[in-house]
């Protein structure tokens, strides 16, 4: 029995966000999202609802890997750099209007984008999407303890990368 579209709607942002960060390309993310939503519609009903998020993300990750392999096979040139997501504050069209926090946000998103997999996915799924350790471990097919080690390592790398900016938060405006 196919899933109701309301369930698909509930998963769409997470699927797209994961695919966008993984492939670094909005067009590829859109293709992956559509494929995964169709698969979720077809097979999601046979998945335990409590594990559906992890299942969906695992399918998304595999679809992204397939997409990157196909793209690599088609083009010998290097992959485009990962895109920044949601970086523009609503009222900041000029760099002059960037606040310090917005500036930190830009650097933070770039630092996350520069992380290797699976660190990038782990940081995002845990810190932004607020998934449980178990859900992330299931989605990325990692042992729970390994996941925690990777998460701590990823945070430390971000801290090291952003150290000058985080320290500048001490400075008075």
């Amino acid at each position, binding site marked *: 029995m196919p899933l109701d579209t309301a369930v698909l709607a509930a998963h769409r942002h997470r699927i797209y966000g994961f695919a966008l960060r993984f492939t670094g390309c909005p067009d590829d993310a859109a293709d992956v999202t559509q494929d995964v939503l169709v698969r979720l519609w077809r097979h999601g009903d046979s998945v335990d609802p409590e594990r559906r998020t992890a299942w969906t993300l695992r399918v998304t990750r595999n679809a992204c890997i397939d997409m990157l392999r196909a793209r690599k096979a088609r083009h010998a040139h290097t992959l485009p750099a990962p895109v920044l997501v949601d970086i523009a504050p609503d009222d900041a069209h000029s760099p002059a209007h960037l606040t310090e926090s917005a500036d930190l946000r830009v650097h933070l998103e770039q630092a996350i984008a520069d992380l290797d997999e699976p660190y990038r996915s782990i940081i995002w799924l845990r810190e932004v999407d607020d998934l449980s350790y178990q859900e992330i471990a299931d989605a990325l097919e990692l042992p729970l303890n390994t996941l925690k080690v990777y998460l*701590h390592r990823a945070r430390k790398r971000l801290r090291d990368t952003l150290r000058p900016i985080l320290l500048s938060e001490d400075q008075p405006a």
Partner: protein
Amino acid sequence: MTSSTAPCPNTDRIEAFLDGDFGPDETDTFVAHLDACASCDHELTLALRLQDSLSALTPSRCPDDVFQSALDRIAVLDQDRAPVARPRTARRRWVAGALCTAVAALLIALPILDRAAEPAFTQAEVESATRDVELAFALLAEASHTATERVRNDAFGRSAAQINHALTRSR
């Protein structure tokens, strides 16, 4: 306090401390260490700032047109799924085949039975015709059981009564 520039091996444990992975005793020990170690205290401050910054990030949103395209694809697939009534088609074919077989058997057997008293037919021929008719009725019964009510009413109703009447008369 140790110098803030001196690396401390305990800084690697800050993340576990923030995640609440320590038991009560280990937590107390680490908090006491933070009071004494400027390096770890400094790292903890940075870790907390990073944590605040991460929590301020917002998840990406799937564009509406991407979701709508997926729904359009699903609608097409859903239409293709509609003729899942394949079993029904197969059942109709089976009923039609059974009907044809039964009618053919009756067309051959009934004339023989109708004139069974005539010397032109041997006893063996009459018995064979009787078996054909019984087989035909068995097929009709099975087809009637398998068919939908509408098919049953349309196809079998009148003809079965007529055949039965012919058979009775031949005996």
